[in-house]
């Protein structure tokens, strides 16, 4: 054993170990566990495309409905999966706090990192598949897409950091937050375009940073897309960084409460 490991080197080795452990668990814990990662967004997209096909809506805001749905869905999943995985990180890794090196916040960070990484792979795989069947899936402004995706990941991380503490302190809050996820799915404009909502309701919907993130991703894919005029990627980042700061502060404040039984 190295006698004097600096705190930072301990933290890095813990992150690495947790990341590897989580990825093995997440990808290979059950038969073809990795397939479900891909299948969930695929089924969502296929189902919605079927519905939109029935009502014969081919174009939304100037871009192909299929691309519009797929991109929005992937962006929303980036937020939701990161958020929920990070939220449950502390609870499901409780046993690991046996080892003093592992702090609750480490499990949240490594889970969020893994989920973001997996979502990038899922997005690339899905876009490639869609490209093969002839959809226009090459983003016109790749940097804007990355910026928006990263913003959504940060939002998920901030959400996870705050809720992972909240859920441990008040277990009922966890259920409440899960209930909130379904309305959020609709309110973020995954399956209907926000620009169709009249004022003043649109302003209310746009208080939700996830809606901004989704529109920004779509705009990055097709610059001629009619995004909501109030779209602000800065809002996404400010919101996310505030949440992350708040979440980290909560983790510092309640570090011992979280690790205790």
């Amino acid at each position: 054993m190295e006698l004097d490991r600096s705190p930072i080197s301990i933290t890095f080795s813990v992150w690495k170990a947790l990341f590897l452990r989580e990825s093995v668990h997440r990808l290979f814990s059950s038969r073809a566990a990795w397939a479900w990662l891909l299948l969930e967004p695929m089924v969502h997209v296929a189902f919605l495309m079927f519905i939109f096909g029935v009502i014969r809506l081919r174009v939304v805001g100037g871009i192909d409905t299929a691309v519009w749905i797929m991109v929005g869905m992937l962006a929303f999943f980036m937020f939701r999966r990161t958020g929920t995985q990070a939220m449950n990180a502390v609870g499901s890794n409780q046993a690991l706090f046996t080892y003093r090196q592992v702090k609750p916040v480490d499990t949240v960070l490594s889970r969020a990192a893994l989920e973001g990484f997996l979502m990038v792979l899922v997005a690339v795989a899905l876009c490639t598949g869609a490209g093969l069947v002839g959809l226009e899936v090459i983003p016109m402004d790749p940097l804007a897409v990355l910026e928006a995706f990263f913003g959504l990941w940060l939002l998920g991380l901030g959400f996870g950091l705050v809720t992972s503490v909240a859920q441990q302190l008040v277990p009922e809050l966890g259920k409440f937050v899960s209930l909130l996820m379904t309305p959020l799915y609709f309110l973020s404009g995954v399956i209907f375009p926000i620009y169709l909502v009249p004022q003043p309701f649109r302003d209310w919907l746009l208080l939700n940073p996830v809606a901004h993130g989704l529109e920004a991703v779509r705009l990055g894919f097709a610059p001629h897309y009619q995004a909501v005029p109030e779209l602000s990627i800065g809002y996404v980042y400010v919101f996310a960084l505030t949440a992350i700061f708040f979440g980290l502060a909560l983790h510092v404040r309640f570090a011992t409460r979280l690790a205790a039984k």
Partner: protein
Amino acid sequence: MIVVKDVHKRYMTDKGPGKWVLQGVSLSIPANTNVGLVGKNGSGKSTLLRLIGGVDQPTRGVVERNCRVSWPMGFGGGLQGSLTGRQNAKFVCRIHGHEHDIPERLVYIQEFAEIGDAFDEPIKNYSSGMRSRLQFALSLAFDFDVYISDEVTAAGDAAFRRKALNAFKELAGRAGLIMVSHGEGILKQFCTAGIWLDNGQAHWFDDIDDALKAYKSSQTV
């Protein structure tokens, strides 16, 4: 040197905070001392051990460890059922900063545990004996200044118990030991000093025999 300062502990139950298990325990355990913990069931022996090992946090008070203290030996909470023995062992190596010599440690763990090919099976398929073999081997694979043990020598079949006991003797010679056991013989064999836990309070004895005597006299009354 491990210093326990005014430690209080109670657990959260479904109906709010439970009873106090430890109420104001203060101790200092010198380096390289083998200490046995005695007390009746439910007196807080395992709780105190877990607090010293840092598995759990005190409700009030502090535990200072100025040396490398093991996690409670044979404690299996940190093992993930869906991962294999090897993957779990790798994880423990990594967080203890042994990234570079993982192969050697794995060989040691596999050989000591003697679980053969099961080392590459998911842990959830293990029998309880195989589990405790792996857990014991894991704790021995790292060098600590103080080892913590909760009835660990009672694990496994007769052959493994003998092997574990020998490893334990070797351990007691080179490092400090804090152990819980209901076996008087084991305590006398390994420990010099003793701690008697009673009513949430801890009493320190320089001689394990005195600790056992105090504990027994409290029981006969």
